[in-house]
Structure formats: structure tokens, C-alpha cells
């Protein structure tokens, strides 16, 4: 506790009931499932939390920032997984990551036993949790493995709404998804702007230039270049509807991550020594669907 008299954003946001961005992860997971079907697995009172954070004098959260709930979407069995961006930047630690990997595995086992189980992931994450570094890496590999195994049975839908964004290991999960839903406020990219500036210098990218950053990896750009499937407003009902519609559409004709021929062709057309703009990529890629 501090003595500064300032309300956190989330408290102020409680009055804005329909903004998905302002919801916490548990509420988001509930929004993505049919009303009244939300049934949380490993909830707060199970107290399976990070064993590594208290060892480093960091306060753990009872659900480790990953909400897993079983329910239905359009009456069909489903699991919703939501990361809490406000806790440790939505980072993937041993417990949060393993909750995601296990939920995907259980959905796949359901599919194999004749109970097709849909999976929707609401991702807000800076990537691996550096305080749990190498276990985080192992768990992210397991998440990827389970996501790839599950998408052979049912579509896997990723929602990136903001404001944390989806980076690092979770950007890989978004890359592997059957479908990606984004808002304009959301960002999807492998390396965060600060990391790029640090590693490549401010002449490569000025991490404070917010319009530039959103022009590169914001929802509008990702949708215009075919890296996201649906662009939605920050409205909980609209997002839930978009997710239902994608499950109704079924398996995508082509998985984006299988589009090597298209991307090899696209890369060949670009000269990496020249500076590129977001508009230029939009223009070049607008008529090609992956």
C-alpha cells in the first residue's frame, strides 16, 4: 500500500461496462463463452501459484495471471483461456503457461474421444516471465506443441484486444492460431518496441513513437495485411460475436503458418536495404490472401 491518492485505471474503468479492453481476464473469459456456462478450472482458491516469484520477493497472484474456463460457445463444448495483462505484464511463468498448455491438451483429448472442444485464447502478454526464464521457455514450447496438435481437430481462435499487446512467446501462439481477432488498440509482434530499440538502436526504431509502433503492429495494420482475420471495435459483445462467427466458419482453408510459398514470394519482392512504410506493405499485400 502507498499513500498517494490516485485510483488505478481498472477501478475507474469499472463504470465502462462494455469495453472488453477494460475487463479483467476472468471477465473476458466469461464474455467469450455462452452466458452462464463459465466454469473456471484451477481458480484462485486452488492457489496453484508461482513457486518462483516469492523466492524473489515478488507478490504472486492466486491464479498466476491465467484464467482457464470450460463452457460452451454456441452450445458446443469450449475452453476459454485468458491472460491477465495487469499481473506481471501477462508474462508466461511455469503455472500460467502450464495452465494454458494443459487446457489445450485436454481440449485435444476431448476431440480425440469424440467431443470436439473449441479453444479461444485472449492473449495479453509481454512474453516469457524473466523471473522463471528457462521453465517459461519450456512451457511456451509445450503451449505451441499443444496448439498445433489441437488445431488439427478444431479451429483455435486468438483474440488480441489490448492494452498490453501480444509479444514474444504469445505472438508465436497467435501466429499458430487458426484465426486472429484484433482491436485497433491491440498490438501483435514478436519483439516489443523497447527491445528492438535496445538491440538495434534508436535509428532502427524509436520506442516512444507510438503512432509509428501502432502503424507497424497495431490491429488495423495486421488486419489490412492479412495477419489478423477480423478487426473489431473494443466492444465485448462484438468480440464474442466475432469469435462465434469464426467457429461457425470452421477450419480455415489455409493455415496462415503454412503459407510459406506466399511469404517467400512476398519477401522476394521487397528490398530489405530500403526503408519500408506500413502503407507500402498494405498496398503490396492487399490483394493476396494467405
Amino acid at each position: 500500500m502507498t499513500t498517494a491518492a490516485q485510483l488505478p485505471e481498472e477501478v475507474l474503468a469499472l463504470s465502462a461496462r462494455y469495453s472488453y479492453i477494460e475487463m479483467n481476464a476472468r471477465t473476458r473469459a466469461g464474455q467469450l463463452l455462452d452466458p452462464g456456462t463459465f466454469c473456471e478450472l484451477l481458480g484462485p482458491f486452488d492457489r496453484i501459484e508461482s513457486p518462483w516469484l516469492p523466492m524473489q520477493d515478488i507478490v504472486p497472484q492466486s491464479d498466476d495471471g491465467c484464467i482457464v474456463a470450460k463452457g460452451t460457445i454456441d452450445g458446443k463444448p469450449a475452453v476459454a483461456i485468458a491472460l491477465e495483462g495487469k499481473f506481471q505484464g501477462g508474462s508466461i511463468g511455469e503455472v500460467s503457461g502450464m495452465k494454458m498448455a494443459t487446457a489445450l491438451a485436454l481440449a485435444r483429448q476431448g476431440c480425440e474421444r469424440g467431443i470436439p472442444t473449441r479453444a479461444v485464447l485472449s492473449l495479453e502478454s509481454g512474453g516469457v516471465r524473466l523471473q522463471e526464464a528457462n521453465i517459461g521457455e519450456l512451457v511456451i514450447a509445450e503451449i505451441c506443441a499443444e496448439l498445433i496438435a489441437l488445431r488439427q481437430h478444431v479451429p483455435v481462435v486468438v483474440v488480441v484486444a489490448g492494452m498490453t499487446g501480444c509479444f514474444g512467446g504469445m505472438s508465436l501462439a497467435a501466429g499458430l492460431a487458426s484465426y486472429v481477432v484484433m482491436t485497433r488498440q491491440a498490438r501483435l509482434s514478436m519483439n516489443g518496441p523497447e527491445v528492438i530499440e535496445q538491440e538495434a538502436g534508436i535509428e532502427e526504431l524509436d520506442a516512444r513513437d507510438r503512432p509509428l509502433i501502432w502503424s507497424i503492429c497495431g490491429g488495423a495494420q495486421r488486419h489490412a495485411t492479412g495477419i489478423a482475420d477480423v478487426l473489431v471495435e473494443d466492444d465485448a459483445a462484438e468480440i464474442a460475436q466475432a469469435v462465434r462467427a469464426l467457429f461457425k466458419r470452421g477450419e480455415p482453408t489455409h493455415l496462415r503458418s503454412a503459407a510459406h510459398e506466399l511469404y517467400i514470394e512476398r519477401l522476394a519482392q521487397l528490398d530489405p536495404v530500403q526503408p519500408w512504410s506500413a502503407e507500402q506493405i498494405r498496398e503490396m499485400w492487399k490483394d493476396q490472401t494467405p
Partner: protein
Amino acid sequence: MERLSFDYPASGEKPKRAHVGVVGSGDLEILLEPSADERTHVAIQTSVTGFADTWKAVLDRFFEGYEEAANFDIRDCGATPGTVMMRLQQAIEVSRS
């Protein structure tokens, strides 16, 4: 990180479980459960050290008006006293809803 604990007399009524909040900057998470005895126990993990007196003042005031025998498991990430009071109140509302 600092761990604090406080203890208050209770009337013996047992509340229902409730969970509110997140361990995010300026906020806190509270897990409310019935306690095993006739008292209310508050266990705090806080990222900000050196505010034990402030916690005591806030909790003393809050528990003057709360009689149920509960365990409050609080994980704080630098919340203000106002936010702490608001979350405690919210936990009780959720517990009674």
C-alpha cells in the same frame, strides 16, 4: 515484499467465498473465505515495505464494522488506502451476493 498479519474478533457467522482484484500496479487481490475459528484473520503480502502502521489503521477501521469469521488473503501491489477499502468492500459484496 513484506508479509503482515492481523487478527480480529468475530461473531462466528461464516461468509461465503469471494475473490476480487488483481496484483497489478496500484491494485490488490483479495481472497475471502470462512475461517476455521471464531476470528477474522488477515494475511497480507505487499510489494511495498514499511507501511505496517498504515495497514493496521485501515484494517482496524474496516473491521470495526465487519463481524463475520473470515480469512482475508490479500496480495497488494502498491494500492492506496482508498483502493484497499474499496476492494475490501467489494469482496464483502461479492461474498454476500
